[in-house]
């Protein structure tokens, strides 16, 4: 099991989400969602299915328009080009360029975004893609495809990597290995990551801090200890402070 890091991270946020609200007709999928992402950390957006994680990510990634709120960098609202230069968003459940090979997909994204080509070999090895480079994207299993997409995400030049359900489709062994890989790429001076995870055990394995989301609202933000204190302050103290218990107490 990968141990959560305890290193100190800069207190200033790389990016802040301020009162993000998104409605689909009469349904409010994200309701004044606010949280901050600190440089070098892995922040997990935790919530059950239908809690609004993907909606929040689509808005952050610029794929869906916000109804209210803003995405801030250095305290100022980010324009679309500024946001694109800070973060790279990897959606869940996509099969881009199904007729093209993995090698082609990696080359294309590196060429288009100007990512770090020297990392290419390392990332390909980390995700065990060497033997699959000539396979077409459309022919891959769900887990293989997820590994390719995560590899693409890590090769992109933006400092913040935002991935929706990075462990979806992976088995337990792959989840642990990839969690370790993601951890190795994150840290001060390296990459910052914002991951949406619905499996709380997976989140506990990889994230430094957590944002708990339920019914489109943020129920808490912080490390496990901070969230335990928050639960206690609300009169819902947990006996054994695990992320699952804290999540249940706060949502």
């Amino acid at each position: 099991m990968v141990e959560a890091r305890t290193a100190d991270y800069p207190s200033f946020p790389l990016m802040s989400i301020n009162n993000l609200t998104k409605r689909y007709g009469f349904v409010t999928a994200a309701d004044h969602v606010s949280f901050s992402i600190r440089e070098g950390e892995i922040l997990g957006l935790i919530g059950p299915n239908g809690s609004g994680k993907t909606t929040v990510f689509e808005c952050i990634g610029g794929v869906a328009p916000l109804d209210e709120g803003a995405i801030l960098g250095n305290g100022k609202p980010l324009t679309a080009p500024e946001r694109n230069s800070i973060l790279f968003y990897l959606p869940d459940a996509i099969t881009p360029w199904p007729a093209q090979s993995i090698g082609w997909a990696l080359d294309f994204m590196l060429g288009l975004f100007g990512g770090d080509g020297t990392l290419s070999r390392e990332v390909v090895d980390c995700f065990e893609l060497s033997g699959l480079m000539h396979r077409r994207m459309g022919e891959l299993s769900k887990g293989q495809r997820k590994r390719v997409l995560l590899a693409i995400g890590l090769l992109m030049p933006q400092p913040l990597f935002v991935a929706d359900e990075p462990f979806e489709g992976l088995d337990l062994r792959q989840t642990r290995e990839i969690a370790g890989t993601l951890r190795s790429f994150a840290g001060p001076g390296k990459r910052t990551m914002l991951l949406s995870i619905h499996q709380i055990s997976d989140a506990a394995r990889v994230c430094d801090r957590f944002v708990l989301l339920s019914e489109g609202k943020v129920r808490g933000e912080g490390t496990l200890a901070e969230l335990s204190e928050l639960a206690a302050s609300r009169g819902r103290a947990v006996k054994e402070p695990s992320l699952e218990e804290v999540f249940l107490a706060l949502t």
Partner: protein
Amino acid sequence: MRLRSSGFWWLLSKEWAELLSSWVWWVFLLLMGPLVGVSFVSAVHTYAEASGLHGTSAGVGEAFSPLVGIWAPTFSACEVAAVFLLPFVAIRLMAGDRQSGALKLELQHPMSAFTRIAAKALVLLAGWLIALLAPMMAVVLWKSYGGSIYAPEVATVILGHVLNAGIAAALGCATASIAEHPATAAILTLTVTVGSWIVTFIAAVHGGFWEQIDDYTPTLMVAEFQHGLIRLDVLLIAAAFILAGFALAAIWMRLGVAVRRRVYESVIVAVIAIIVIFPSAFARPTWDMSENRMNSFSRDDEQALSRIRSPLRIEVHLAPEDPRRVDLENRTLAKLRRVMPRVHIEYVSATSIGLFEQANPGYGEIWYELEGHRTMTRAVTPEAALDTIYGLAGITPPSNDETFRGHPLAVPPWGATIVFYGVWPLAVAVWFITERRLR
């Protein structure tokens, strides 16, 4: 962090790879050969028979022009392809990105949606030019038979089909971008196409305003080029349609922009298009590129007509569906408009077909009015019209020495069947297999 700016070339290569990976493109390319082949073989047979093959009376085909006899029917296959195949290639290229989720990744590159659409448009143009190799093979075959080729008129026909393809591709891209699903985009595209045919039908029945609109439907625009005529108004309006279509595609491609804003931007594009199209419809310059000047009076007549400075008014009492009116319009009045900017033509009729107006003594009359003088004739031939106008203007009719002798060719379409039904499909198959193996 600054991202590299050479993204466009990567995008271009990606669009090309995506085009080559789509089945609809290969089907489209494969069908181009037989489509062109059936038109070309039929046209050459007819041309040969009219030129005296199989004992038909020699001399009938002496006034034959390859433009009308060969190029217009052969290239008409491109029109079929542009209406029924190319839009689906464009829809596949647009909708594929959205359906696979690739668009969500690619849109994060700080490149404008217009640049992205430009990459798609360039690849579609390249694809269309490759497909045009099929009719170009017909040109080579015709030359090998000893047929006459007048390059300007062939180039004009090709220009018309490139513009028509541009409109079809822009329409396909726009509908694919606006609609959530490719099937919806296909239905929208066909609706627009059928809508343009309905306009043509209404114009034939009611004439007037509808006829003016019909002038700018893709079918009618291509018809002008197929007659070797380049009209500035048609060029400008076709360009406006193409740019507006691709602009709409770019606007609706952006996922992270509110629908309301995209609607506003679409309205702005539509308004700009109308602002461009309306004055463009009044652009007069035209160029007759046909070898036999089929869209023009003789040079002597044109010179004589250009000396008439006063406005000429023509009142035609013929119904829209009356064949005499069609004849008069196509063979005389269209030519007259090109040389006499101050001609005003008015069609008068109480019904659309004219069948029940025959008893009306005024039906069939064509009134010409120049400098206060009026005269009437019922003849619809160009010669009669010119004589009437010269008479009113007091000009001596010029002597016309100019006669197009035509290029008769009594040769059957040797080898065309093998080329279009054998060589072309084989070449496409070889390319397809090679491309799949290389990937």
